């Protein structure tokens, strides 16, 4: 704790009341379906949050943040979701890349990159996964070869959210092929306007288009854009992926809670009290309580800074299951009108629930697939022999 923080941080209830009051006085934007307009609207929303002091709440003051605790950040996330407000567009920067730069970056990197990241002037994407390096991320092949003051980078990335609209990319590259695969990886900060970068959006089954493929062909990246030391990128990547997971689980819990509340309201407004609706809502409620109980443990670990544990994988399995149960139950009530956009079977908005149900299938794939999590639980939590 630095000497400037002699005063106690605002109490959580006071902070929550202040967040709630601000959100009530600042109407959140409607999120338009068109991807380009959506990007613009959500970027403006990040600017609004930033100017009111809500961006980077748990970041240090020196880095331009709020100097508050993780607990404050989690409270704000909750209130944001409950106010039916969208997330700021630069979430990857705010929660994954930014904290890494803050922790591992040079003074110059922090000074030049962090303020623009917070304000949303720079949107960041995360170039980690590759077509041949998904669950086995450490086997990534994108190469960076030193060339004078630069690296020359060539390869291909995939599942890179917002790459086609981002200004910067946090890129994992191989800088040494002669060593154990984790030991030859470096973390580069890449300007997306550099010559040699092309992006191709991938349309998802939900109709959304936030993922991209990124192709890198002899892209010149200054060596001063290396984050941390050469060949030490793996530790940085795993550190940030780990810290992202807890916050993401907690955010998703509140989002699911809000979704279920909305479904109950829509069904109730239509008086749809048949046995099938009762059963579906009952099952979804049970699932939500399971997640609520599970995330109490997650929160406790997050606030105690216990670091990664195999219990994170249990959290992930529980979250997958709950998310898929909740949306399958709600969407199941749409019946045949699921496929008819604009209809309101039993009062439910068919497009929203069909969309959210499809999206729930990704839950057991992204951030470490359910199969990977099960192996971690079996070997590291239950202590079963390695296969």
């Amino acid at each position, binding site marked *: 704790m630095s000497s400037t923080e002699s005063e106690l941080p605002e109490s959580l209830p006071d902070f929550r009341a202040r967040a709630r009051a601000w959100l009530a006085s600042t109407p959140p934007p409607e999120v338009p379906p068109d991807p380009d307009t959506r990007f613009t609207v959500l970027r403006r929303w990040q600017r609004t949050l930033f100017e009111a002091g809500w961006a980077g709440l748990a970041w240090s003051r020196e880095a331009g943040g709020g100097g508050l605790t993780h607990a404050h950040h989690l409270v704000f996330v909750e209130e944001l979701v409950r106010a039916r407000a969208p997330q700021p567009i630069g979430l990857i920067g705010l929660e994954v890349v930014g904290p890494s730069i803050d922790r591992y970056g040079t003074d110059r990197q922090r000074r030049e990159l962090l303020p623009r990241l917070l304000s949303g002037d720079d949107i960041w994407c995360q170039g980690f996964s590759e077509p041949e390096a998904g669950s086995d991320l450490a086997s990534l092949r994108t190469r960076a070869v030193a060339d004078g003051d630069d690296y020359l980078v060539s390869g291909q990335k995939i599942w890179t959210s917002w790459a086609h609209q981002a200004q910067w990319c946090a890129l994992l590259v191989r800088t040494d092929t002669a060593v154990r695969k984790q030991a030859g990886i470096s973390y580069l900060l890449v300007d997306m306007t550099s010559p040699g970068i092309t992006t191709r959006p991938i349309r998802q089954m939900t109709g959304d288009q936030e993922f991209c493929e990124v192709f890198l062909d002899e892209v010149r990246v200054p060596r001063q854009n290396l984050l941390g030391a050469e060949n030490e990128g793996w530790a940085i990547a795993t550190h940030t992926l780990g810290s992202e997971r807890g916050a993401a689980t907690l955010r998703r819990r509140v989002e699911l809670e809000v979704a279920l509340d909305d479904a109950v309201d829509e069904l109730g407004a239509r008086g749809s009290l048949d046995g099938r609706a009762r059963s579906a809502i009952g099952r979804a409620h049970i699932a939500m309580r399971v997640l609520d109980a599970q995330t109490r443990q997650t929160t406790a670990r997050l606030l105690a800074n216990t670091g990664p544990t195999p219990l994170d994988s249990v959290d992930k399995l529980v979250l997958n299951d709950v998310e898929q149960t909740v949306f399958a139950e709600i969407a199941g009530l749409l019946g045949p009108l699921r496929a008819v956009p604009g209809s309101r079977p039993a009062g439910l908005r068919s497009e929203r629930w069909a969309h959210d149900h499809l999206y729930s299938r990704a839950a057991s794939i992204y951030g470490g697939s359910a199969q990977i999590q099960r192996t971690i639980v079996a070997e590291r939590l239950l202590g079963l*022999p390695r296969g």
Partner: protein
Amino acid sequence: MAEHDDLASTVHDYLTRSYDCDRRRTLLGDGPGGDGTGSGWDAGLAAELAELGWYSVAVAECRGGIGATPADLGPLFEQYGRHLVIGPLLENSLLPALVEQIGPDPAGTPPALVDPGITDDRAAEIGSVSRTGRELTGTVAAARFAAQANVLVVLAGAAVCLVDPAAPGVRVEPIGSADPGTAFARVRLDAASADLVVTDGDLVGRIRAWSRILLACELDGLARGALERTVEHVGRREQFGRPIGGFQAVQHLAADMAARSTGLHNLCLATLADADGASTARLDLLASTVKAHAAQAAVGVCEDAIQLHGGMGFTTETDVSWYYRRALALRGWYGDEIELRHRIGAALLDPEGRM
């Protein structure tokens, strides 16, 4: 929380020592000459637990108890499940805690809960009891430990009625039991007179809600026990020259069991934390939710435990078959997941129009 853990580990240590495999199996009904299902009742065990004071944990101090809350019983019930303890645990622990007029019995002789409301969906098969003043008439087709009880706690409408099993008009007929931990009896009341009628509107609801919560904790313990046995087994059992726990197909099933068991355990903890001081409607929702989940999760974990034990899991010679039969018996008592989903959905979709 720390007190919960202390008490639970005391109970765990004691049961590990004194309720070992031989004794457990004998009481469950797998002893020499046993036919595979015990009577669910052992007067010696009931007296032993009374002597230890475990039944009195949630009974007020002024009535000879320890003065903790019903929520403090949760961690004990988890241990009871984990160790496959038989007998009137719920009756002896909960009823004296909630019904002032029932004292903890020093010999462990239980009160019996005679409740036609143990199920919504099968109400017609269970029966009903009607009340006029102190006079009770009706039948309850299955009540736990009614033949062993010194008092019948009959729930009739919104009233809790204490009835002497030897009173005129009361017939208690022991019936068979496929639950290795429970004895059942049919109770017929023909203008039987209750010694006492409590019409405090909340009491019936609180008895049912806490029964659900504690049964859920017991199911949590059953799931945990089945998981522990399974992890031990697959780490030891070798096929194809190595422990089967090294095969991914086995690992993933075991990991799923662990995730479900942990999820259930955390839900029990959260429910116990939220239940003290909750309003009746809120308590009912919390209780239905945890019982519904416990019914589904514990049965599922036990089924996978049997699967991973192979042929041995299907026999009475491994604990997992006992965990499973116990879980199946508790699953439907005060509602399984199917029944309770409706109850929960009704409460959420139509909070006013219910009950």
